[in-house]
């Protein structure tokens, strides 16, 4: 009886979406394996396998729990997020200038990866409650809800998630349908936030990333080093790539953060243009299926949730690929399902679990 129930529950699952995630994770694993060849002891590949194991558990959790109840738990999730960010500020470990990790032996945990998902749930829940109302008051309310999280992230400092959350806030408000005046007001708020961010929050290092993006050849060995090395890695892959473990840029450490933020360039160096097309196809299938879910959900909460979660990954994907090929500044965002990083992968599995949950419970 229970087996039948579980089988029937899995029947509505979107296998194309799951399949695209499966192959993306597989490609990421292969790239991480290639980059782990010189690792001693517990390799990054081993850690990623462990993350996949926990990711599957979180996927099942996200899949089986009623996603509508997650909305009603939004204040609890909000409190958890604030507490997590406060704890990591005081008890966390600093890597690359960002105090954002809890380190437990050989493993580390980055709470912001889950807080991004929680923030989407909180925003979706809030917008659903005020679904009929739209305008500056709602925008300000949702911005004020996000503000403590944003400020705590700025104290780490970790500007990638801040940018992502503010962009989500903007898009979720914009898609509700705006009059001309409302567009002006919303853009005005964006400009004010951007100016405050640039002059009040961003350090010289982060400002340098943007100025280097605008003129990457000005300082090729300094600020423009990452992007220049990444572009060389992308270009040197050719049609079919140099082969596993044969990438000069990634294997010889010319390419910084080759397994995390710049794994796209690492993969293209070793797998070439063909590898790029495969990755692009898989991501396109993934987001196309999310759009399909979005088109079919019937209530506003589910719509905001699916849109927010989808955008969370989409923006990350586009920005990461764009920064790998020099089309966007280096913002410190990993590539979903491909980059090395246990917390991010587990959170992404959880996110996919919620999406599947929506698919199954909406029964379309």
């Amino acid at each position, binding site marked *: 009886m229970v087996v039948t129930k579980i089988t029937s529950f899995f029947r509505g699952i979107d296998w194309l979406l799951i399949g695209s995630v499966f192959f993306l994770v597989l490609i990421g694993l292969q790239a991480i394996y290639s980059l782990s060849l010189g690792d001693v002891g517990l390799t990054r590949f081993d850690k990623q396998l462990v993350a996949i194991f926990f990711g599957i558990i979180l996927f099942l959790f996200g899949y089986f729990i009623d996603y509508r109840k997650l909305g009603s738990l939004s204040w609890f999730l909000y409190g958890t997020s604030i507490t997590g960010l406060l704890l990591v500020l005081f008890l966390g470990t600093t890597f690359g200038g960002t105090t954002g990790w809890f380190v437990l032996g050989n493993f580390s945990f980055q709470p912001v990866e889950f807080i991004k998902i929680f923030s989407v749930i909180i925003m979706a829940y809030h917008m659903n409650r005020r*679904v*009929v109302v739209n305008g500056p008051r709602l925008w300000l309310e949702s911005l004020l809800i996000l503000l403590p999280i944003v400020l705590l992230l700025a104290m780490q400092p970790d500007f990638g998630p801040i940018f992502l959350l503010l962009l989500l806030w903007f898009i979720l408000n914009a*898609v*509700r*349908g705006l009059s001309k005046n409302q567009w002006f007001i919303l853009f005005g708020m964006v400009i004010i936030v951007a100016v405050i961010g640039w002059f009040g929050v961003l350090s010289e290092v982060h400002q340098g990333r943007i100025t280097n993006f605008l003129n990457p050849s000005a300082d090729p060995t300094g600020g423009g080093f990452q992007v220049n090395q990444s*572009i*060389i890695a*992308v*270009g*040197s*892959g*050719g*049609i079919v790539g140099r082969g596993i473990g044969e990438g000069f840029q990634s294997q010889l450490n010319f390419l910084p953060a080759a397994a995390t933020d710049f794994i796209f360039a690492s993969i*293209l160096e070793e797998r070439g*243009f063909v590898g*790029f*097309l495969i990755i*692009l196809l898989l991501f*396109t299938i993934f*987001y*196309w299926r999310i*759009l399909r879910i*979005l*088109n079919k959900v019937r209530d*506003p909460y589910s719509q905001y949730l699916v849109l927010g979660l989808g955008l969370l990954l989409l923006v990350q994907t*586009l920005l990461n*690929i*764009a920064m790998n*090929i*020099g*089309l966007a500044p280096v913002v410190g965002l990993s590539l979903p399902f491909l980059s090395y990083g246990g917390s991010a992968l587990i959170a992404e599995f959880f996110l996919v679990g919620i999406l599947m949950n929506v698919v199954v419970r909406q029964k379309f």
Partner: protein
Amino acid sequence: METISDKELKIASYFVNTRIFWHRLAIFLLFFADVVLIYSVSLKFLFYWGGAMAHDKLIRELQNDYVNLTAIHSTYQGSPLRVSEVKKISAGVDQIDIITEVINPNTRLFAKEVEYRLVQDGIPQEVERTFVLAGQRKSLFAFGVQGSVNSDIQLEIVNTRWQRIGDNNIRHKILSNMEVGDLKWGNSGGDFEISGAISNGSGRGFWNIGLLAIIRSGPEIVGVNYTTLFKVEPNEVREFVINWPYDISRVTSVTVLPDVNVYDDSIFMPLFTRIIDPSGIDQ
């Protein structure tokens, strides 16, 4: 009949009016993003490929040797030393003096060590060493050699060590600042004697200066001799006398040539500095 609230109506209106638009826009943007990414990544590949081709071409071009070594060699290639005819001068019973000239035709090559030997009637003699300055006609001689003027005697260059002289090297000009003058000669009590003075205008002192004296009767060389002057200081005029232990008649000309290896640092005396008082009085 089910009643619909205002709120539900607004939601329904929103869904109908905007949902389809956003969905179509999202699908378009997704595939537009794909096109942009494919285009951008293709450009990166093409630029890298183009850059790699240009780099390969540059490397291939760098492997070409644009230095025209043939022209350089033809300009700077050294010519071997030339030996002129060996002259034999009777110097008593079964004894002869021998003189010949070794010519260095090169203006930029100095024969810093020349190993030579006489081959008398097919028998090689002991190896001697000398030097020949760039462009110099150097007289080589041997006194009191056993033999007659009819003996077959050749001078054979065994080995030559060359040194290239830079364009800015002016050492060869030292010899032109040495002048031999006041030459007098004549027979006196069974001896033949040459006297004269050498003026060292080179500005450098020499531990020793060789003097080669050649006596001619018409075009024929009738006598040669060699002497060495020691510690010749800068601007010094040193007198010298060169003797032959026999009379020499019908002498028409006498040549005395200074013989200094100007490329040998050890022949120069150290420079002594003097403190010059600003008033011009030497201390």
